[in-house]
């Protein structure tokens, strides 16, 4: 059971994301560079963002009942047209990046979803478990300035589900409540057309197609445990790149979600496609890569299942892009049991392959994509694997830390002379030191699942001015598929830090100054975090914010990137604030800059030797370089 099965509910509308952008640039994390008047700071398109995420003008479009029938009008079911909204009576949720070096797994934190009648009566409420972007794919909107070209998907689980008193009056709620496990529901949100141009009315808004369905124990939380369809068509347009689908042999149904991949032509998700589309089963294995050249299939190559009836402009808004095919024949079901589903467009040249199922029907994916670890923290990585939608057993999955990445530009000392132009510090490498994390290199799926332990080891500021390190672990298994997106786990391992016995201002000044620089909204409107006296004046509210549960929308820091010991140090300082005299300034040294590979020994420059020595002096340990 999942959002792809029945019963389910489709909604669509806008979302608001007031993300902050100063922290999109690694150089801005360098306090000295930031403070240098000669620096040419980049602050992005929304420097005063407050990280707020919320639903806006989202309405129920259709419901599909347990028996597969669908209601699409308020006359058929008064649930159609009712409203999806965010939290009531608490701060709205937040959307935050993991790190400037990993901005592709932005997570929702503290987001509540409510379904209300038009009179504001609560029917359903739940808390979205912190979900990260997945399945990023191109979703260009032609002729619109400042629009994000990528669409993404959040799949998650609603927990703490509360049913309103009136919910019992709706057939849909009766059914979904009886089918789902515990106080949980599954949720999928395909988002795109996010506008980043502050001169336009829809600035900060994007479009969303959402689906709420059932959730079953033993299933992944952050993706639907089904099959996958990958785009193979013209790579420059990259349409139908990633879509999820489920085949239900018992009910003889096929359910495909094109809501994340269907081409759109405007900010509202009007369809941008004209060729007839068909779903079919391939009669032979296909391994096509995404390519510019069209792949024409002959009618011998496939067996048509059904057309995709998308013809109206507002088809995506009304259906969320969910294609629902019933009454599959025995022969189609047999074919689908171990052959690839394909999506074809009918053109003058013939049937063009637009998308094909994963090679051999494999889908091996980590559930949680993001981990935040301190020294000594342990976590469990859950990996699920399926073939043709069935759980895999005796299949090996591999975890690997790819070579050190992103040492792309040379770095220089920040100049302290305002008259000299200065170069921003370079992009620090990630995935180093490689002994920062401990995890098994492989594991075996049984009944579609395996769990691996992940431990964060002590690291000592390998990126110097950005706390901790980003590790991106590649997850692979079964066969490679060039059309499939990379499956990765992103870890922010925080630098080793001890809580001082009696913290003084200079113990916390470096990271409080950094927050002040990066989150202008705090300094401008609430409290200048780099001013110890301002912190003391707002001590009570700050202690409140720094002691919230991480799932609380008011948790500080909003980015959730502070190690526990640094958080405790802030609290300890606020309780007994001692402002010491600033120490003599230590020149900012570059992060290790060399393009590092796993094999080549690195010759340190003089600056790097200084950095290594300094690190050793401060921490008793030389920075690890491999």
């Amino acid at each position: 059971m999942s959002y792809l099965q029945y019963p389910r509910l489709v909604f669509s509308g806008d979302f608001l994301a007031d993300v902050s952008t100063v922290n999109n640039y690694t150089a801005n994390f360098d306090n000295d560079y930031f403070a240098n008047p000669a620096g040419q700071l980049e602050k992005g398109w929304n420097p005063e963002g407050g990280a707020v995420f919320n639903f806006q003008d989202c309405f129920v479009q259709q419901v599909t009942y347990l028996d597969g029938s669908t209601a699409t009008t308020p006359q058929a079911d008064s649930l159609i047209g009712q409203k999806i909204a965010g939290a009531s009576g608490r701060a709205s949720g937040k959307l935050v990046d993991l790190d400037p070096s990993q901005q592709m797994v932005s997570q929702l934190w503290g987001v509540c979803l409510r379904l209300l009648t038009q009179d504001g009566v609560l029917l359903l409420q739940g808390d979205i478990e912190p979900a990260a972007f997945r399945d990023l794919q191109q979703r260009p909107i032609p002729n619109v300035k400042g629009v994000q070209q990528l669409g993404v998907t959040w799949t998650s689980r609603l927990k703490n589900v509360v049913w309103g008193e009136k919910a019992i009056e709706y057939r849909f709620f009766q059914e979904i409540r009886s089918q789902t496990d515990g106080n949980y529901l599954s949720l999928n949100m395909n988002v795109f057309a996010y506008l980043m141009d502050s001169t336009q009315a829809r600035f900060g808004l994007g479009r969303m197609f959402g689906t709420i369905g059932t959730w079953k124990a033993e299933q992944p939380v952050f993706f639907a445990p089904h099959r996958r369809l990958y785009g193979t068509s013209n790579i420059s347009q990259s349409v139908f790149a990633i879509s999820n689908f489920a085949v239900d042999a018992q009910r003889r149904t096929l359910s495909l979600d094109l809501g994340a991949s269907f081409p759109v032509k405007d900010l509202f998700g009007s369809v941008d496609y004209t060729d007839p589309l068909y779903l079919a089963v391939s009669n032979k294995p296909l391994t096509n890569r995404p390519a510019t050249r069209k792949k024409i299939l002959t009618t011998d190559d496939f067996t048509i299942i059904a057309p995709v009836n998308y013809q109206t402009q507002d088809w995506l808004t009304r259906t969320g892009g969910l294609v629902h095919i019933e009454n599959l024949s025995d022969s189609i079901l047999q074919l689908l049991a171990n052959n690839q589903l394909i999506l074809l467009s009918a053109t003058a040249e013939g049937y063009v392959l637009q998308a094909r199922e994963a090679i051999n029907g494999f889908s091996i994916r980590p559930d949680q994509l993001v981990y935040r670890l301190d020294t000594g923290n342990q976590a469990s990585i859950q990996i699920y694997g399926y073939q043709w939608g069935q759980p895999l057993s005796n299949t090996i999955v591999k975890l690997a830390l790819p070579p050190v990445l992103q040492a792309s530009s040379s770095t220089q000392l920040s100049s302290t002379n305002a008259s000299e132009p200065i170069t921003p510090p370079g992009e620090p490498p990630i995935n180093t030191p490689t002994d920062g994390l401990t995890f098994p290199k492989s594991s075996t799926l049984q009944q579609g699942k395996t769990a691996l332990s992940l431990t964060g080891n002590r690291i000592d500021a390998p990126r110097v001015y950005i706390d901790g390190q980003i590790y991106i672990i590649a997850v692979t298994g079964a066969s490679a598929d060039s059309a499939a997106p990379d499956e990765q786990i992103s870890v922010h391992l925080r630098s080793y830090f001890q809580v001082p016995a009696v913290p003084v201002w200079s113990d916390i000044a470096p990271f409080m100054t950094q927050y002040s620089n990066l989150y202008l909204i705090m300094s401008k409107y609430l409290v200048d975090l780099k001013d110890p006296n301002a912190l003391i004046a707002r001590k009570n509210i700050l202690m409140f914010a720094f002691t919230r549960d991480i799932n609380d929308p008011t948790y500080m820091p909003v980015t959730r990137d502070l190690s526990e010991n640094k958080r405790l140090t802030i609290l300890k300082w606020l309780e007994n604030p001692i402002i010491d005299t600033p120490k003599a300034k230590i020149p900012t040294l570059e992060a290790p800059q060399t393009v590092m590979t796993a094999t080549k020994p690195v010759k340190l420059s003089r600056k790097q030797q200084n950095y290594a020595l300094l690190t050793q002096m401060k921490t008793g340990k030389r920075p690890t370089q491999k």
Partner: protein
Amino acid sequence: MALFLKSEFIHRVKAANQVSELYSSLQGAIELEHSTIPPYLTAMFSFKPQTEREIWGIIHSIVVEEMLHMTIVSNILNALGGAPVINACKVVPDYPSPLPMNIDEGLIVNLAAYSATQLQTFMSIEEPEHPLEIPRDLSESPKYTIGMFYKALQDQIQLIAPDMLPGDPAKQVTSPFFSADELFPILTKNDALRAIDIIVEQGEGTSVLPLNEDGGIAHYYLFEELYVGRKMVADPSAPNGYSYTGAPIACNPANVYPLRPNTKTADYAIGTLQRQRIDEFNTVYKALLNCLHDTFNGRPERLKDSFGLMFDIKLFGEKLCALPDTINPSYNLGPTFEWIPD
């Protein structure tokens, strides 16, 4: 022009024979305390970021006390067995508006940028029964002021309430952000009487001093400081021992955004950036009222959720004030403080 209440509100209090007959009066007091906060916040938000921090801080301290008063009255209503209503259309005035319980032709309160005119309004709201003359003549005929209304409530509670109040103690709201001297659970008649003293003194001062018992300057005189442009200081030569002869408190008008008075959602078309920002603001405002309603109706632990919303109100409010008005280009938008139905 001072803020005078309709006499029926005083009479209703005085006519009460049982505590349940005070519920509507206490609800009126909650609405009244709440109604002062949007105009005060609008004045604060009209300052450009990080400017006029001294004045900002003074108004902020008053807003905090108005929130305290709203909390105290809600606690009293709960203590008497009633149920405060915070999240309803009727709680939110449609500015420009008289304040709740005010006589119809009385003071009309606007949501507007900080100005001498707004300060006069604020002083009228907080005006004591007999303002102490601190080198300034402001003689009005004493009608029914807010202070008199609270005094009547106090007298009536004294008269008709049992020593141990009937409400559920679990509904009492306290907060680590207020001292236990100011905000305490109201369980007995004496607690209720003491709590009303706090409200009156913070707003008006004691009857002989512009200070409250803790030595803080009462709201009326704080606003008058801003109006006169000087701090109030002890001055033995002055009739009441104080004069506005202290350090100057100057406001640079260039630091104040020219807000469109009483900005309304309906004036801005759906799909415009202005409407977008207004909707965001009203959404947060409503969420805050919903949160407070829960807090005062049996879920006091939800008070903590309100702090994040208060931050958001400020954030969205100040961002709104920085946004040019499309209807009249000489203005910026003002915070709307409207109750928008779901």
